[in-house]
């Protein structure tokens, strides 16, 4: 039995330490906001935070996450009021929505480390998160909006 801290809650997990973290989150803990995309760290749909970094949970083994702090889209903010979430809703960013939790988790790290990103900063930082619907222009717009909200103290 392994102890895993997810969204500030401790879970006892009966799983092999080599099991992908994504499997644990979705299949054992029921946190299905994080998606399976490619399974080989190429698309970003499975992005969650491990100790604040936007890791690919499809290739990260459970054993690496034990002892750390995992944050999924369900735990990004207490009331779905992270500036990015507010901006995402305001600008209706998602189309099919499948990649969007990964997009948000990646964007959250960008905004934390670069509170005023340029278009180029955003385009480069988000290049690892693919969107088959092509919502990139709205993603970029929403990150700018979230940066302003963050500056104004809106959201978390």
């Amino acid at each position, binding site marked *: 039995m392994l102890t895993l801290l997810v969204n500030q809650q401790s879970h006892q997990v009966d799983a092999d330490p080599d099991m992908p973290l994504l499997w644990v989150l979705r299949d054992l803990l029921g946190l299905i906001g994080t998606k399976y995309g490619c399974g080989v*760290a190429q698309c970003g749909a499975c992005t969650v935070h491990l100790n604040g970094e936007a*890791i690919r949970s499809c*290739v*990260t083994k459970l054993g690496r996450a034990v002892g750390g702090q995992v944050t999924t889209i369900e735990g990004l903010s207490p009331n779905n009021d992270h500036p990015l979430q507010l901006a995402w809703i305001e600008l209706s960013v998602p189309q099919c929505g499948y990649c969007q939790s990964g997009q948000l988790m990646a*964007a959250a790290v960008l905004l934390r*480390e670069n509170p005023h990103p340029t278009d180029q900063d955003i385009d480069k930082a988000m290049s*690892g*998160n693919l969107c088959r619907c092509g919502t990139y222009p709205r993603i970029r717009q929403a990150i700018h909006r979230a940066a302003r909200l963050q500056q104004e103290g809106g959201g978390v």
Partner: protein
Amino acid sequence: MKIIIGLSLILLSGVLAAPPPGPPAPHPTKDSIASVKAFMSVYEVLMSPRCMNCHPAGDAPLQGDDSHPHTMEVRRGPDGRGLYAEKCSNCHQPENTAGLHTPPGNPKWRLPPADTPMIFQGRTPAQLARQLLDPKLNGGRTKEQLYEHMAKDDLVGWGWHPGEGRTPPPLSRPAFAAQVKIWLDNGAFAPKEFTKKSTN
């Protein structure tokens, strides 16, 4: 006459076989030809994709046996560990991920830092040898530390265990380390600018 010649040869051979007088030389003999020859073997390894891909000329790491720029606009970042949501260890695990086209891994996976990028890509043998020996350009390493890095460092050693679909360097790690040692022990000579690359 024959006796005189015979005696002379015996005496002469005795003189040649005698150990040199005085204390041993403080340093082994420097052999610039052996040094440069060994470096050319070292150069072949350093310019192989497994080494060069993490010593790029630009701000992006390289990938694959064709050394194309890393997909996803991955960049070096100030400490060589990537930027924002694209830090190296976000995808690269402490070990190779199984399967083709999956992220290779090592606990220390990173590029050289931005202030000392240690570029291999595009360097001639002469340029690379001089760069490797310059502490201002090699991460502050002495020759001994340079040898340690090349012969024993775990991240460098990943090159010989690169996982599926990646060709290892042209020499084995022990053979590479031996050539580094020959290069350094013989004076760490840099090749002339016109030294041709080995075709082996």
